[in-house]
């Protein structure tokens, strides 16, 4: 675009070739995209309109699957679990993420060390995360209960009690992901011009005052990114729960993705129901992302 003066005639000569070239460059990526993302996304709506048994015989149902899914008490239990999980996950991720990012940012000596250490759980296979925590939270003789025992705290049935298991699943999810959010927030903090702090210091603002009136507002864009990502991640949680609680006890930690997986791939297979669940999940993620952006925009404008 900028180099218009250089040899215009040659450009005209190759215009036909130029016309196809970008499409050829795009072709492999778009082919895979189209086949494995865009077409399935469209087809998903289609599948959700058909009844199915064991993944085979299809009959047009219209909104029938949605009707049966929405009148299913078990499904509402799963929705409830998912909403509680996602809400707590986002809230804790943002709060702990901001605290860690600010502390790491202020820490001159060993900043890189702490940043790396908090990021390491992000790198670990979620399957292994679930496995390790399941092992450490064993009721009798697990590492956590043994540790608490030193302080005279009696055995806690972490993975047996419904409410405790919910808390554990949320806490482990935050443990695994918060380093990732911290990194985004840390980048946000480091892009703040240090001279604004100097000005504030000259005006006699203490650290807390500086955080409330400067850091927090200037960090809003990064916080918004974290809220959006954490919302999406929160609604997608599955892999580590699979090895941590398996969705138990008695379904207390079964979330929507596990519901989709089990209806789609564990006998009795019910593609229609699973797809209806998927469509509802997509609508939830889509709506919340839009709301997050709108709230964030308004905040930024204000």
């Amino acid at each position, binding site marked *: 675009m900028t180099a218009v003066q250089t040899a215009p005639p040659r450009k005209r000569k190759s215009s036909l070739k130029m016309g196809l070239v970008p499409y050829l460059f795009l072709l492999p990526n778009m082919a895979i995209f189209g086949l*494995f993302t865009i077409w399935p996304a469209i087809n998903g709506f289609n599948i959700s309109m058909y009844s199915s048994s064991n993944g085979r015989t299809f009959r047009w149902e219209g909104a029938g699957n949605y009707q049966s899914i929405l009148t299913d008490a078990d499904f509402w239990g799963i929705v409830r679990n998912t909403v509680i999980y996602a809400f707590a996950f986002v809230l804790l991720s943002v709060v702990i993420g901001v605290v860690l990012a600010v502390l790491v940012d202020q820490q001159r000596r060993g900043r890189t060390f702490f940043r*790396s250490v908090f990021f390491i759980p992000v790198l670990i296979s979620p399957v292994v995360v679930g496995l390790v925590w399941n092992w450490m939270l064993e009721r009798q*003789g697990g590492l956590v209960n043994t540790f608490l025992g030193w302080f005279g705290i009696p055995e806690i049935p972490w993975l047996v009690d419904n409410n405790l298991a919910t808390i554990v699943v949320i806490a482990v999810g935050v443990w695994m992901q918060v380093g990732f959010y911290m990194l985004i927030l840390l980048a946000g903090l480091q892009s703040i011009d240090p001279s604004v702090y100097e000005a504030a210091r000259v005006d006699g603002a203490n650290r807390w005052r500086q955080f409330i009136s400067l850091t927090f507002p200037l960090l809003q864009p990064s916080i918004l990114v974290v809220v959006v*990502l954490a919302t999406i991640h929160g609604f997608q949680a599955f892999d580590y729960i*699979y090895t941590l609680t398996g969705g138990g006890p008695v379904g207390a930690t079964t979330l929507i993705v596990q519901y989709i997986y089990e209806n789609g791939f564990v006998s009795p297979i019910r593609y229609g129901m699973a797809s209806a669940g998927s469509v509802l999940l997509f609508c939830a993620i889509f709506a919340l992302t839009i709301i997050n952006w709108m709230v964030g925009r308004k905040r930024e404008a204000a």
Partner: protein
Amino acid sequence: MSSTTTEAAPETLPGKTWTSTGKNNITATDALRVVILVTAALVALVPIVWLVLGSFKTPTELSARPPLLLPESWGLSNYTDALTRFDFTTYLFNSTVVTIAATALTLAINSMAAYALAKYNFRGKNGLFLLTLATIMIPLQVILIPVYQVVASLGMVNTLWGLIIPAAATPTGVFILRQYMLSIPDELIEAARVDGSGEFRTFIQIVLPMCRPALAVVAILSIMWRWNDFLWPLVVAQSETVYTLPVALARFTAEETVPFNLIIAMSVVSILPVIILFLFFQRQIVTGIANTGIK
């Protein structure tokens, strides 16, 4: 978002060491901060250290109550047993092949698409770019069943291809590479054209070498995702010969037929490569994630 090389704040301020003069008193806030950071670091690390220690313990030591902190001897028998007792090498091989092949494919097709979106003007460009970005909102979890049906109809269930191809076109990769390529001057590409270089040759010999930092970020992210991926391999790899490490681990844990000491050893093997990669490429990973904010 647009700049690709930040890491703005200096890691260590040269003038601020223990011996330097100036305001250097350790205040209560400083002490509190260090205490909180160290505690949080312990919380982050203890499970991993516990896992690694556990991988050296014998079954008897593992079932000791209260648990033993350290193994009595640092034998490697869990690792060697895991290697011989079942097809551990197959799972390791599958994970490695899938990760490397998928990453290579991702790099190839993402960089080509990014080049078209960054450096050419053509009809539908903005639409295709928006479509690419919008698919970040469509996670695999949401389209699991229809994708599975496509893969099944292509006969790719229970093949490594089924694990490699479907997720290769990542919107994140296209986005990172496109942003980077925008910073390459058009004059350079024009000059190559004047010299008679074909479009594809210009891309391979001039554009790609200049994108090395961005390609490294995409490669590292792709390796991390693919190595730890679980839900998709769980769905596609139904027979044991195509299990990846995470799938094998999850299946064995659920079935309770495999001794726990071997599962721990396998877990350690499955987390090591990514941690080593991270320690080597820390800077690229950190800036890559911080700048794109996408996982």
